[in-house]
């Protein structure tokens, strides 16, 4: 049961509901579904938290998820984890859930539309200078653009835009290509083999959500941490990946 036809490249073209100038396509509908699920789930679970020895299994699940993301963010950010944690965790959870539900028939991942992924990438694009300026001040942030000499200014600017484009197209390409592969396999070898590919799709969705969140964190870390590294070189430690 595929609601996106084989010759449609994006769920934006699937109109579920149109009334006057309001048109609801599949991307908007499923984005709001995921958002509602995440918000309502979080409110319900955090409604009765307990600090006793016994707790509900949902609280246990939430503690595992939040703790894991927090430690991953902390490994890269080194300091000020709580500043970046809500942003990165929101990105990760939204992409993760919208990717994982693809095994439900009739569901189309909102991340298989270029509009959703572009919006997420633009959010990261603006978050990097906001975090960098609020951490180091605007002069220090702008000084990074002319390091090591002023000739490198255009390359820094081009790098900002190209990595935003790469962020958007990577997520879109992976998820969209997977859906297309599933649709083609259903026509060629029905019944068994598409199920295996669906199971592989869960892994792809998880890895892409992880990569999107980690790359956003790495970009933010490279904008905020430049100050300390020039001051004192870390001695043979595992330093964050700089891209």
């Amino acid at each position: 049961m595929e609601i996106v036809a084989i010759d449609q490249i994006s769920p934006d073209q699937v109109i579920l509901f149109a009334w006057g100038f309001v048109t609801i396509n599949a991307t908007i509908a499923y984005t709001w579904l995921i958002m509602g699920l995440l918000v309502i789930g979080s409110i319900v679970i955090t409604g009765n938290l307990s600090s006793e020895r016994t707790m509900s299994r949902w609280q246990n699940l939430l503690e595992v998820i939040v703790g894991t993301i927090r430690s991953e963010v902390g490994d890269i950010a080194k300091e000020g984890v709580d500043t970046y944690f809500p942003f990165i965790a929101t990105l990760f959870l939204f992409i993760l859930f919208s990717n994982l539900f693809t095994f439900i028939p009739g569901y189309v991942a909102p991340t298989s539309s270029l509009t959703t992924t572009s919006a997420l990438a633009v959010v990261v694009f603006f978050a990097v200078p906001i975090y960098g300026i609020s951490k180091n001040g605007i002069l220090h942030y702008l000084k990074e653009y002319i390091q090591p000499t002023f000739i490198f200014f255009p390359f820094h600017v081009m790098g900002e835009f190209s990595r935003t484009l790469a962020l958007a197209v990577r997520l879109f390409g992976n998820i969209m290509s997977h859906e297309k592969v599933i649709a083609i396999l259903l026509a060629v070898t029905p019944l068994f083999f598409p199920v295996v590919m669906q199971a592989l799709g869960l892994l792809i969705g998880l890895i892409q959500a992880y990569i999107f969140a980690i790359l956003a964190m790495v970009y933010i870390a490279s904008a905020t941490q430049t100050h300390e590294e020039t001051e004192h070189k870390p001695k043979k430690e595992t330093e964050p990946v700089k891209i």
Partner: protein
Amino acid sequence: MDSVSIVAMASIITAGICMGIGAIGPALGQGRAVQGALSSIAQQPDERNSLTRTLFVGLAMIESIAIYCFVIAMILVFANPFWAYVIKKAGG
């Protein structure tokens, strides 16, 4: 041969060539990256977490090149702008 079949043929052949050639470089690059990461993990198993994270980020960067090729191939096959133009010309 009329222009419709020329555009269709060119699109399909170009999509195949784009995907085929575009997959060579990332495949070699990913092979080298995984090889380096595996030998590093074998030498220093304690650093596994940091190595794995860096490996995934690097693989994503390499893979994005193949993904660009794939997106262009998909556009050529499914959402070709020249195809719509030629069909409109031929029909009208």
